[in-house]
């Protein structure tokens, strides 16, 4: 029971439609009740029997009943049609309460035998009101019905423990009119009338029934009505069966009664027949309905299965779709990333991207592209013309050519110089690929452009360096850390005989003589430490197997990170140098030998002269000494001739002694080192003149000493020279009454010449070349004594100073002896 009255049966696919139908039913029900009531009232007012009792002869509806019906109908109408505001709700409730009270009062009156006279309120004085036996009354059934209906209307929307009481009340209320109608159809009076009371009129019964139905349907989304109206199998069943289940027995009852009254058959037969027909019809209906439902159900199941399959396939499709979407998302993601990367790459790589539409001659470019051309931000437009306006004139032709080629091949690749917007010249490299239309026309070229100035400059630099290396006369070789030759210049080709092709890639060891491993290992160890190896001499082997002496210098080759990747060697052929060195060594050796020999010879000479100076003198001394003693001590015993002889012995010894001294002095000149100092010649000459005073005693001598310079020379040796020259001058002027000996200087050919001039006996120039020879004399010893060594000594001394000595003379007039010393100073103005 609760199920019926519970909330919200599923109303199926068109709730609005069922609501509408429900409401419409309720409206019609309400209107029917109002109509019946109004007609009845009109009937009473104007005495129209039809309106009063519907079928003539039947009981007429009590006017108050009619009124109550109207009120109930209005209440229902309000509830069903007007969208609820609480005022209307209140009104409906008030009306429902009125109906309820009427019913209640009447029932109370019946129960407690009160005659409240409600029935007579209206139209009591109209004819027909008072019936044959009784005045018209509200029948108690009607009162009970009113009570229930009124309650139902009042409690229309109330809920009680999950159910709606109004539903229950309405159903309960409907029994009364139903019974009445069945009774009228059967002719069974007690169903519509109780005891002595006025029975429920037919029209009132019908109106009541309508009201009940209306109440049930006025809330079409709940309870009975909702099920009745639903599109479900239940609703269908109810709609099909319920009216027949209700109407059929009434109808059959009526027919049966009519048949019975007509005497067609008896009571029992009639009952049985009625039951029979009932059973048949209902069973048939049920069966039909069941069959339909069964098919519908099957159909529903099939539909359900189909739906499930469809659902599955839909799921499947959904999964696929999801996957496709995910994939697409991923692809989009990848695309986005790829685009990011492209942007990043082109920015980082300073590569500009361009997309030229050949038809419109417009190009899309990345910002980097315009930057390369010197613009800070993207220009609004770019075309081939704008591009060409940047190309330097010299490269114009080349670029145009390349473009034309690209039109044919679809590939663009060139390098050229451009003038940037800031007037700076740069090198660029542009690459592109073309896209053709369906007709095969090139319509679009896409590519990149990069500023390659640094690289170009680097290349130029490298080329220059390479040319430098290549053209160098020295062999320049590069090798890797594992000893393979990586570079080989022309100098290397010349030196070693291998061409670059033959040498590159080969191990460096092929240039080494056997056993060169250690040397190479030591070198490479130093290179790997980053050291430079200064040039050192070693030997290498040429291609023809011949060894060659070389000087090698190495330095490490570093990569851009500073790591050592190899070594570069400069190898120089030092064969010539070696030869020269060898020669030098030989010469040096010879020189050493000679020097040694010379030293030995000198030492011999030293010893010799020493010996001479000692050993030779001694006997001479003895001779001289004893001769003298002889002369002195034994003079009386010696005849004059004897004395003369002894004198000659002494003289001989004296001469020999002199000779020894002179020779010693001559040899000493040769042996000793020059001790150079600044010497004032004047002082020397004056000193010598003083020393010669002894020899000059008793003679008239005019010493003319002129301007004599300061000379850089050996003082002792110079003195010797002056002694010899002045001594000679003194000696050879002896025959003269007055000897004039002049000493002075002259400048000849920019050189200072010292001369000693005398007016002595002179000599013949015929023998001039003999003058300076050792032991050479141009005069007889009895005329002029002398050993013939003096001038030889002078010459040796002068030559040792790097100077020259010569003499001019006229026989019997005089002689002039001159000499120069190559190292000399200008006269510092010392005047003697």
């Amino acid at each position: 029971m609760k199920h019926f009255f519970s909330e919200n049966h599923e109303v199926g696919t068109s709730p609005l439609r069922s609501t509408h139908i429900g409401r419409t039913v309720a409206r019609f029900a309400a209107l029917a009740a109002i109509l019946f009531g109004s007609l009845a009232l009109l009937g009473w007012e104007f005495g129209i029997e039809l309106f009063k009792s519907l079928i003539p002869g039947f009981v007429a509806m009590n006017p108050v009943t009619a009124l109550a019906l109207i009120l109930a109908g209005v209440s229902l109408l309000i509830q069903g049609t007007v969208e609820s505001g609480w005022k209307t709700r209140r009104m409906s409730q008030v009306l429902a309460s009125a109906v309820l009270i009427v019913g209640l009062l009447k029932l109370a009156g019946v129960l407690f035998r009160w005659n409240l006279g409600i029935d007579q309120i209206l139209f009591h004085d109209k004819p027909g009101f008072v019936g044959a036996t009784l005045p018209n009354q509200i029948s108690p059934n009607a009162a009970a019905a009113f009570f229930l209906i009124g309650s139902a209307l009042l409690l229309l929307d109330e809920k009680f423990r999950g159910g709606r009481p109004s539903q229950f009340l309405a159903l309960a209320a409907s029994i009364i009119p139903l019974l009445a109608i069945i009774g009228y159809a059967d002719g069974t009076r007690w169903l519509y009338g109780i005891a002595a009371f006025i029975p429920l009129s037919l029209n009132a019964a019908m109106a009541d029934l309508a009201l009940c139905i209306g109440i049930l349907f006025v809330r079409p989304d709940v309870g009975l009505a909702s099920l009745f109206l639903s599109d479900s199998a239940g609703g269908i069943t109810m709609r099909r069966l319920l009216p027949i289940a209700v109407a059929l027995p009434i109808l059959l009852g009526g027919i049966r009664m009519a048949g019975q009254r007509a005497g067609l058959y008896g009571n029992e037969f009639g009952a049985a027949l009625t039951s029979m027909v009932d059973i048949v019809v209902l069973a048939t209906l049920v069966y039909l309905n069941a069959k339909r439902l069964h098919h519908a159900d099957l159909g529903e199941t099939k539909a359900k299965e189909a739906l499930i399959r469809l659902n599955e396939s839909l799921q499947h499709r959904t999964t696929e779709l999801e996957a496709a979407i995910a994939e697409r998302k991923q692809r989009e993601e990848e695309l986005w990333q790829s685009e990011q990367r492209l942007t990043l790459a082109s920015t980082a790589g300073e590569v500009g991207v361009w997309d030229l539409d050949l038809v419109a001659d417009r190009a899309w470019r990345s910002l980097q592209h315009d930057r390369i051309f010197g613009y800070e931000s993207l220009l609004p437009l770019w075309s081939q013309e704008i591009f060409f306006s940047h190309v330097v004139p010299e490269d114009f032709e080349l670029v145009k050519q390349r473009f034309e080629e690209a039109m044919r091949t679809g590939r663009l690749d060139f390098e050229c110089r451009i003038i940037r917007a800031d007037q700076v010249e740069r090198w660029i490299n542009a690459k592109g690929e073309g896209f053709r239309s369906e007709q095969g026309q090139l319509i679009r070229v896409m590519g990149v452009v990069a500023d390659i100035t640094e690289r170009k400059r680097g290349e130029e630099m490298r080329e220059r360096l390479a040319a430098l290396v290549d053209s160098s006369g020295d062999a320049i070789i590069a090798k890797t850390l594992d000893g393979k030759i990586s570079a080989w210049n022309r100098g290397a080709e010349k030196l070693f005989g291998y061409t670059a092709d033959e040498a590159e890639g080969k191990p460096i060891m092929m240039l080494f003589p056997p056993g060169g491993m250690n040397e190479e290992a030591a070198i490479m160890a130093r290179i790997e430490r980053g050291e430079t190896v200064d040039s050192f001499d070693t030997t290498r082997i040429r291609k023809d197997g011949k060894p060659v002496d070389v000087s090698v210098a190495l330095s490490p080759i570093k990569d851009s990170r500073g790591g050592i990747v190899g070594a570069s060697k400069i190898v120089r052929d030092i064969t010539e140098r070696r030869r020269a060195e060898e020669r030098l060594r030989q010469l040096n050796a010879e020189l050493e030998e000679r020097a040694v020999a010379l030293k030995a010879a000198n030492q011999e000479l030293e010893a010799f002269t020493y010996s001479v100076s000692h050993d030779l003198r001694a006997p001479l001394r003895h001779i001289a000494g004893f001769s003298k003693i002889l002369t002195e001590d034994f003079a009386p015993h010696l005849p004059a001739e004897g004395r003369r002889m002894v004198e000659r012995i002494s003289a001989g010894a004296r001469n020999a002694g002199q000779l020894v001294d002179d020779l010693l002095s001559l040899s000493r000149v040769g042996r000793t080192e020059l001790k150079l100092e600044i010497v004032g010649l004047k002082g020397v000459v004056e000193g010598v003149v003083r020393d010669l005073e002894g020899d000059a005693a008793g003679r008239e001598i005019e010493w003319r000493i002129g301007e004599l310079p300061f000379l850089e020379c050996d003082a002792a040796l110079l003195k010797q020279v002056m002694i010899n020259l002045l001594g000679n001058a003194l000696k050879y002027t002896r025959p003269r009454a007055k000897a004039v000996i002049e000493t002075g200087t002259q400048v000849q050919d920019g050189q200072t010449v010292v001369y000693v001039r005398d007016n002595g006996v002179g000599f013949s120039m015929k023998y001039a070349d003999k003058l300076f020879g050792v032991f050479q004399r141009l005069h007889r010893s009895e005329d002029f004594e002398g050993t013939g060594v003096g001038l030889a000594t002078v010459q040796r001394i002068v030559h040792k100073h790097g100077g020259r000595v010569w003499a001019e003379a006229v026989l019997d007039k005089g002689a002039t002896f001159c000499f120069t010393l190559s190292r000399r100073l200008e006269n510092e103005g010392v005047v003697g």
Partner: protein
Amino acid sequence: MMDLTKEVEILLVEDNPDDMELTQHALRAGSLCNRIHVARDGEEAMDFLFCRGAYADRSFNHPVHLVLLDLKLPKVDGMEVLRALKSDPRTRRIPVIILTSSREEKDLMRGYDLGANGYAQKPVDFDEFREAVHQLGLYWLVVNIPPPPLQGEK
């Protein structure tokens, strides 16, 4: 005969007999002294001066007044004698004149380095020789004040 222990004034160290005779002649001609002793080689000279060997009787307290030293001597060379003489405190003070034919610079240097008091070359000419010796004797035996004798016995 003079007493070798006390009275020698000049020690002539000369190996050559001729030179010896000539020198003696020259010294005597000057009448300077008769007290000349001749040592014929370096060893004898050393023995004499150091009061040993054959001359063990001599004493350091009676040194000679002058040593005339030739350079080229047998057994012990003149320079050696000079060095020995001049490096011993007992004999250092004795005047030593190198009398030699050599006028070699190196002999000069070495001689003076070793402490020789003088250096004279023997000239070839005898007159000159005589004069030189005379002058030497005159100076060293007359003018020069001899070194004082050492205290104490040898």
